[in-house]
C-alpha cells in the first residue's frame, strides 16, 4: 500500500511567495533600523566632535561596547533583558532597537569623520560670510563632509542589511529564517539557500557598485 503521509514535500510555487514575504520583512527591518540608526548616529557623531572631552569620556566607551560585542550576543541579551525591566517587546521590536543602536554606533564614527573632513578654514570662511553655526552645518558641512563619507556610510548600511539576518535568532521570520524553515520541510538546502543568497546579493551588489562609481566620480 502506498503511504499517504510524507514527512517532506518538495519545493512548491507558493513557497516562493513565503520567501518573498520574508524578503520584504528583511527589507523592512533593515530600512527602519538603518534610517533610525543613521539619524541617531549622526547626532552622536556631532556630539563626539563638538562635546570633545565630555563626549569622549561618556558616549565613546558606550558606543565602543556595541562595536566590540557580537551582534548576536547583543540581540539575545537585550531580548532577555527587556522583560526584566518590564518591557514586553516582540522579536521585531527588540531586533529593531538593537540594530538601530548598532547602526548608530557605527555611523557615529563615520559622521565624526565627515565633520572632520571639512577643513577648519572653510568653516571659518563660512562663519565670516555671516552664516550662523547651524547654517554652516547645514549648507557647508553636510554637503561636503557627507560626500566625503558617503561610501563608508553605504558600507555600514549594507553591513547592517546583511547583519539583519541575525534577528532570526529571536524568532523573527526574515529571509534566512524562512529559508531554514523551508529547508527543514523540503530537504532541498542547495536550491533554497541559493535563492536566499541571490536575493541578498541582488540587493547589496548594485548598491555597492553604485557607491564605488560615485566615489570615483567625486574623487576626480
Amino acid at each position, binding site marked *: 500500500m502506498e503511504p499517504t503521509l510524507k514527512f517532506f514535500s518538495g519545493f512548491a510555487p507558493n513557497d516562493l511567495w513565503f520567501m518573498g514575504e520574508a524578503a520584504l520583512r528583511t527589507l523592512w527591518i533593515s530600512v527602519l533600523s538603518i534610517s533610525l540608526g543613521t539619524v541617531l548616529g549622526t547626532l552622536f557623531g556631532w556630539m563626539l566632535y563638538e562635546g570633545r572631552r565630555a563626549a569622549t569620556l561618556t558616549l565613546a566607551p558606550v558606543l565602543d561596547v556595541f562595536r*566590540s560585542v*557580537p551582534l*548576536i*550576543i547583543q540581540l539575545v*541579551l537585550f531580548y532577555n533583558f527587556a522583560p526584566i*525591566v518590564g518591557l514586553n517587546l516582540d522579536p521585531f521590536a527588540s531586533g529593531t532597537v538593537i540594530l538601530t543602536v548598532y547602526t548608530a554606533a557605527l555611523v557615529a564614527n563615520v559622521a565624526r569623520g565627515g565633520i572632520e573632513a571639512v577643513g577648519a578654514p572653510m568653516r571659518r570662511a563660512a562663519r565670516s560670510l555671516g552664516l550662523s553655526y547651524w547654517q554652516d552645518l547645514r549648507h557647508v558641512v553636510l554637503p561636503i563632509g557627507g560626500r566625503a563619507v558617503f561610501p563608508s556610510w553605504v558600507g555600514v548600511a549594507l553591513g547592517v542589511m546583511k547583519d539583519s539576518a*541575525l534577528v532570526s535568532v529571536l524568532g523573527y521570520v526574515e529571509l*534566512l529564517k524562512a529559508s531554514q524553515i523551508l529547508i527543514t520541510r523540503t530537504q532541498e538546502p542547495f536550491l533554497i539557500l541559493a535563492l536566499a543568497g541571490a536575493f541578498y546579493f541582488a540587493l547589496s551588489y548594485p548598491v555597492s557598485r553604485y557607491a564605488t562609481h560615485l566615489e570615483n566620480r567625486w574623487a576626480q
Partner: protein
Amino acid sequence: MFDYNFHWRPVMKSLPDLLEAASLTLQVAVLAMVLGIVIGLCLALARLHLRGPVYWFATAWVELARNTPALFQLFFFGFGLGAFGLHLSPYLIVLAGLTFNCAGYLAENFRGGFKAVPETQIRASRSLGMTPWQAYSRVVIPQVFRIVYHPITNQMVWAVLMSSLGMLVGFRELSGETQFFASRTFRIFEYFAVTAVIYYAIVKVILLSSRLMAARLFRY
C-alpha cells in the same frame, strides 16, 4: 517592576568552561585569518594581474563574500554542501565560512594596497638589478603591509565577532557554549552578559596588542 533575581553563581561555576570555549573561539578566528590572508593575497593578485577564468573565479569569490550575510555563508557550508553529501563538522563549517568571508574582504584591502604602490617603483628596482621576487619582497610587500596592517587588525576583530555565529550551526565556541549552559540553567541573561564581557576583553586585547606591535614594526 524590577522583580528579577540575578543568579550569578552558576555562571561563575562554569566560567572555566567558558574561558576554554573562548580559547576555541580565538583559535578558529586566528586560523581563519591566517588562511584568509594567504587566500586573500592570491585572490588580490589574481584580480590584478590575471585574465580569464582565474580572474572571474577570484572576482566571484570576492563579490559573493562581500555581498551576502556571513550567516548565509555559514549555512551554505553547513546545509548547502549537505546537498552534495558533504557533511562538515561544526568546527569545519565555522572555519570554512570565516575563511571564505575573511579572504573576500582582505582581498579587496590587499588590492587597494597593491594599487597604492606606484608601478614605477617596480621598474626602478628591476633596473637596479633586483629579480622580480626581490622587487616584490623588498620594495612592494613592505609598503603594502603598512597599508593593510590596520585593515587586517579590523578583520581579525571581525573574525572573532563573526565566530559567534558558530552558535547557530552547533559549534561550541564561546557563544555556543554559553547557549548550552544558558539553556540548561535558564539564566540566559546572566550567561550572555558574562560572554559579552569576555568578547569585549578579547577585542580590546587584540586592538591593544596590534597597536603595540605597530609601534615596534613601524618605527621608521
